[in-house]
């Protein structure tokens, strides 16, 4: 039992690490676009105003959807156009707030708990899918 819990914890940490690296890239891009203080559209929460309890932030009802997901499938998703004027900020210069890191780990932990103990359709399979990427990401 303890061994299983330890294994699960290690998988959570691996997933968290991979996702944190990608999150830093997201923030780095945002910094590069100088959008941190001037977001386009309506801001849900700002990086400077993060709190663990989230009491200051409410999610608008439109994002609390739980209906027919299949009806949301799009034929074409709009990705950002290339902007050659952006000077990339190295991911290594980005440090995520400890509160965000904790939330990311907590989220992955909670997700791992929603997986049932199936031989195949399990958190282990999904986690390994992500785990395996670590070596490859480092080559990217």
């Amino acid at each position, binding site marked *: 039992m303890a061994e299983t819990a330890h294994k699960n914890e290690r998988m959570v940490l691996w997933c968290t690490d991979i996702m944190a690296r990608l999150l830093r*890239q997201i923030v780095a891009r945002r910094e590069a676009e100088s959008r941190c203080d001037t977001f386009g*559209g309506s801001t849900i929460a700002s990086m400077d105003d993060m709190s663990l309890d989230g009491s200051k932030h409410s999610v608008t009802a439109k*994002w609390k959807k739980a209906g027919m997901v299949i009806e949301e499938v799009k034929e*074409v998703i709009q990705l950002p156009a290339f902007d050659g004027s952006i000077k990339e900020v190295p991911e290594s210069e980005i440090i995520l*707030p400890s509160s965000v890191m904790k939330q990311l780990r907590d989220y992955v932990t909670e997700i791992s708990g929603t997986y*049932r103990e199936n*031989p195949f359709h399990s958190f282990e399979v999904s986690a390994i899918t*992500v785990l395996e*990427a670590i070596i490859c990401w480092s080559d*990217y």
Partner: protein
Amino acid sequence: MSVAKLLSRIVAPDQVFNDEANQDQIALSLHDYTYGITSDPLTQFACVFAALIHDVDHYGIPNSQLVEEKAPLAFRYKNRSPAEQNSVNIAWKILMKSQFAGLRATICPTDDEMRRFRQLVVNSVMATDIADKEMKALRNGRWAKAFSDQSATEESERTNINRKATIVIEHLLQASDVAHTMQHWHVYTKWNERLFQEMSLAYMVGRSNKDPVEFWYQGELGFFDFYIIPLAKKLSECGVFGVSSDEYLQYAERNREEWARRGEEILQGMIERFQDKFRNEFGGFQPGTGSVTYSATSSIASTSFREE
């Protein structure tokens, strides 16, 4: 092979990388060559996120069985991809909790980014239901349209690029979902046996009408011939994954060949190990009757509806 591994294999043509004199041109070429997938960190995060959540709360039985049983989950989702829709809704609901406000704000602080993130996650996870015939036909049509000459001439260049990116991302998740078939033989056989165990358990507790023993050998061959190898060929032909995409196709073809040669013998071993492993939990059980006093840790016998 994982989503991130596939993403990491997305490469620009050699001639682009060899041109070190113009970094901006290299970045532009890489963006165009990969339809913008590599240029957008949010897209990459969404792919990994989708991989993480794509089987959340999976019951260990196929959608077709949930539909046949008239399970609450199937009813709720109108008999369309119930497992996948359930996974997205549960994972999304958790992300929307107040204690993850800071995480959300880091991933997608604006409505526009939130919308794009959700769209990417939805398309990616829903693409992993390969049994829904309607969605499968639509997806195949979208691939054909995206890579047809007609599409390139009848719509804006931007729309055409985004169309390609969208369908390539969906195939990326599909490939990740069957990653074990496109990797080394030992990886393939390990996860193939796990899937066999899961489906055998479902049969034993009366949640499947077919004993996997009866169709597993031929079923795998058909899966390679009509899904895995065509998928690997698509990934190879679209060009986004560069020369290394051939690796996946080669593994798939080799595994198919090896399974054709040794599959029946390997299946016998799988059956014996399954019986040894689960004998204690299913003592005195008559397969297929569903009348077992179930004490296994597996959730397959459960019909609880977690989201409710």
